[in-house]
C-alpha cells in the first residue's frame, strides 16, 4: 500500500493512489459471506456479495431492514471480518488481518459517519476531530492547522471549543464528518447519516456530503430513504444478504444554493 499522507495546499487531496486518474478501484469485494452464530443457529447476514467501487464514486446502499446493509458496511469498515470471501481495500487484501492491523487500517484509510453522530462527550469539537490522528500519533502543529481548515469546510470554525452537548444535531454530524476526513481516508462510510436529523438539516448534511464527493472523496452510504439515496451517483439494492440490483442513478438530486427553497415534492 502506498504511503498515504495528506498533501499540503489542499484540505482534501482526494487521491489515495500515486497514479491518480479517477478510475482506480478503491474497494473490491469478492463473494463476501458473513454468518452470525447464535448458539447452534446460523444467521446468514451476507450470502455472497461482490462489488467494485472506484475512486470518487458516491454509492448508496438500500434495502429492507435485515437485508444486510449494516453488516456489509461493517465489513467494508474493517470493524469485522468476513466468514469467507475477499476484501481488497486500496489493492490490499484486508479480509484476514488481525485485530490490531484492522484498527490500523480503520485509523488510516477509513472514515465513519454514524446515524447517532457518535462523538466523545467529554471532548470538544476540535478534540473529537483529532481522535483518529491521536491513535496514529500524528497530532502536530500542521495537523492542528488542518483540523481548523476542515472545521471551516464543514462550517464549524466558530464551534471548535464546544462540547458535543452544546451543539445541535446537524452541528454534531458536521463534527463527525470532519473527523471522518481528518486522516484523508480512502473511503467514507456513512450509515444513515441523516437518520436522526430533520428535513432541513438532512438537506444541509447531504449538501456537504455531495460537496465532499465533488472534491473527490469516495462515499459509501447506507440509507432507507429514497430521497436521501437520490443524492448518490450509484444505488445498490440489497435483499436477504445479496445484491438485488446495482444501478447508476439517472435522476440524481443536485443540491442547490442555500438561498434557494428546499426541494419539495420528493417523498
Amino acid at each position, binding site marked *: 500500500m502506498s504511503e498515504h499522507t495528506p498533501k499540503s495546499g489542499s484540505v482534501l487531496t482526494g487521491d489515495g493512489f500515486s497514479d491518480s486518474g479517477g478510475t482506480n478501484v478503491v474497494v473490491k469485494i469478492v463473494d463476501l459471506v458473513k454468518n452470525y452464530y447464535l448458539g447452534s443457529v446460523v444467521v446468514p447476514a451476507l450470502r455472497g456479495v461482490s462489488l467494485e467501487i472506484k475512486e470518487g464514486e458516491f454509492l448508496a446502499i438500500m434495502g429492507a431492514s435485515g437485508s444486510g446493509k449494516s453488516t456489509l458496511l461493517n465489513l467494508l469498515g474493517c470493524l469485522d471480518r468476513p466468514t469467507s470471501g475477499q476484501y481488497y481495500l486500496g489493492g490490499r487484501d484486508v479480509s484476514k488481518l488481525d485485530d490490531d492491523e484492522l484498527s490500523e487500517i480503520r485509523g488510516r484509510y477509513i472514515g465513519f459517519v454514524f446515524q447517532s453522530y*457518535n462523538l466523545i462527550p467529554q471532548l470538544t469539537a476540535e478534540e473529537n476531530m483529532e*481522535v483518529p490522528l491521536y491513535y496514529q500519533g500524528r497530532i502536530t502543529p500542521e495537523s492542528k492547522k488542518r483540523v481548523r481548515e476542515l472545521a471551516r469546510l464543514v462550517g464549524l470554525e466558530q464551534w471548535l471549543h464546544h462540547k458535543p452537548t452544546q451543539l445541535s444535531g446537524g452541528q454534531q454530524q458536521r463534527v463527525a464528518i470532519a473527523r471522518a476526513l481528518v486522516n484523508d481516508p480512502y473511503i467514507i462510510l456513512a450509515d444513515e447519516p441523516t437518520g436522526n436529523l430533520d428535513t432541513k438539516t438532512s438537506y444541509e448534511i447531504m449538501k456537504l456530503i455531495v460537496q465532499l464527493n465533488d472534491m473527490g472523496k469516495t462515499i459509501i452510504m447506507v440509507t432507507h430513504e429514497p430521497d436521501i439515496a437520490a443524492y448518490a451517483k450509484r444505488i445498490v439494492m440489497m435483499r436477504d444478504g445479496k445484491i438485488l440490483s446495482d444501478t447508476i442513478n439517472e435522476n440524481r438530486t443536485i443540491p442547490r444554493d442555500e438561498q434557494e427553497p428546499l426541494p419539495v415534492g420528493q417523498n
Partner: protein
Amino acid sequence: MALVLKIGVKSLLLHKVRSILAGLGIVIGTAAVISLLTIGAGSRKEALDAIKALGATNLIVASVKPPQDSSDATRRARILKYGITWEDYERLSSIPTVWRAVPIRAFPAEIWYKANKFDGRVVATNPRYAEINRLTLLAGRFLTDRDEDTIDNVAVLGFDVARDLFQYEDPIGKSIKMGNHYYRIVGVMAYRVPTAGVGGSLAREDYNRDVYIPLSTCRARFGDWIIDRRSGQFTAEELELSQVTLTVHDTHQVRPTANIIRTLMERYHDKPDYQITVPLDLLEDAERTALLWAVFLGVVAGISLLVGGIGIANIMLATVMERTREIGIRRAVGAKRRHIAQQFLVEATILTTTGGIIGLGVGLVTPEIIRYVADWLFDYEVTTQILWWSLPMAPIIAIVVGVLSGLYPARRAALMDPIEALRHE
C-alpha cells in the same frame, strides 16, 4: 502520554463526586498507614532511646517498697525498712563479671539557697554515676573518690536546680542547704532531656532536678532514714540504697550475671523489696514489639489498600460499562485494544495516585493533630517521627494499586467488540 493523562483527567472530572468517592478509600488507606508509621516510629524511638540510655551492658537492681499487708495500717507509726542494703551492694559488686558498680541513694529533699527553695531530689552516689548515665558537665567538676574518702559536704547541681536557685549568679563555690547541713557547690551538670519510662519497669527520670553528693557524706549527714516532710506530709522509711547499677564487659555476660544477681538477692531477701531490670531484655522486648507493630501496620496497610483497590476496580468497571459507546467510537477511528486498556489503566492510576498524594498529606498532618490534642486534652506527650522512606512509598504503592485494580476493568474494555460497543445505548 501527556494527552492520555489529559483525557483521563477530563473523563474523571465528568463524574466528580464519583471520582472523589472512589479515591477516598485510597486517601484514607494511605493516610492511616503514614500516620501509624509516624506515631509508631515515634514511640518506638522513644522506647529504644530510653533503653539505650540505660546501656545494654548494664543491670539495674532497684529497691521497691513492698506491698504492705493490712496489719501495717494499724501500725502506721512504725518505720518501714526495706530495699537494697550495703551488704547487698558488696555482694553484687564482687560478682566476677561485674567490673563497675554504682550504688545510689535517692530521696526527695528541699534545697535552699538563701531564701530560695527548690523541691528536688538528693542523689547520693559515687563518681562513676555520671559515666553510666552519660551526664555531661556544664561547669566545675563531678564527684571524685577523694570527696568520698574525705566525707566532704560537696554537691553537684542538676541543670534546673542551678538555674532556678541561682539564675544569674555563678553557683560554683556557693553553698546550698539540705536538711540541717550546708554543701559547697563544686559543679553544675549540662541540661539532659528527661528519659521516658519504659514499660512500667523503669520510671521516667529527670536528671535536671537532682543534686549529687558523695555516698559517704550522705550516710554521715542523713543516716539511713528517709524523711519526707514536703507539702505538709510526713513519712519516714529506712532504706540503705535505692539502686545499684552494675556493668559487665560484654552483652553475652548480661544474662548469666542477671541469674547470679537473682540468686543472690533471693537468698537474702524474703520479701519482694527489690526489682532487677535488664535493659538488654527490654531492648529485645521493644524490638519484638516494634516488629509486631510493623506486621500489624502491614496488615492494616494491606487491608485498607485492598479495600481502596476494590473500590477503584468497582468504579472503573462501572465507568467502562457506562462508556461502552465511547470505546466503540475510539475503536472505530483506529484505537487498538491496548490503547483502550491503557486509557482505563491511566484513569485508575490517576485516581489512586491523587488519592495517595492527598493521603500522604493527611497522613503527615494527622499525627501532629493527634500530638496536639493529646497534649492539650490529656496532657500526654506523643512522640512522632516521620520515616522519610515512607514518603515516596505512598504514591508508589498507590500507583501499583491503581494498575492492579484497573487491570480487570481495562481488560473488559479492551476486549469489547467494536460493533456491539457502537450499538450500545
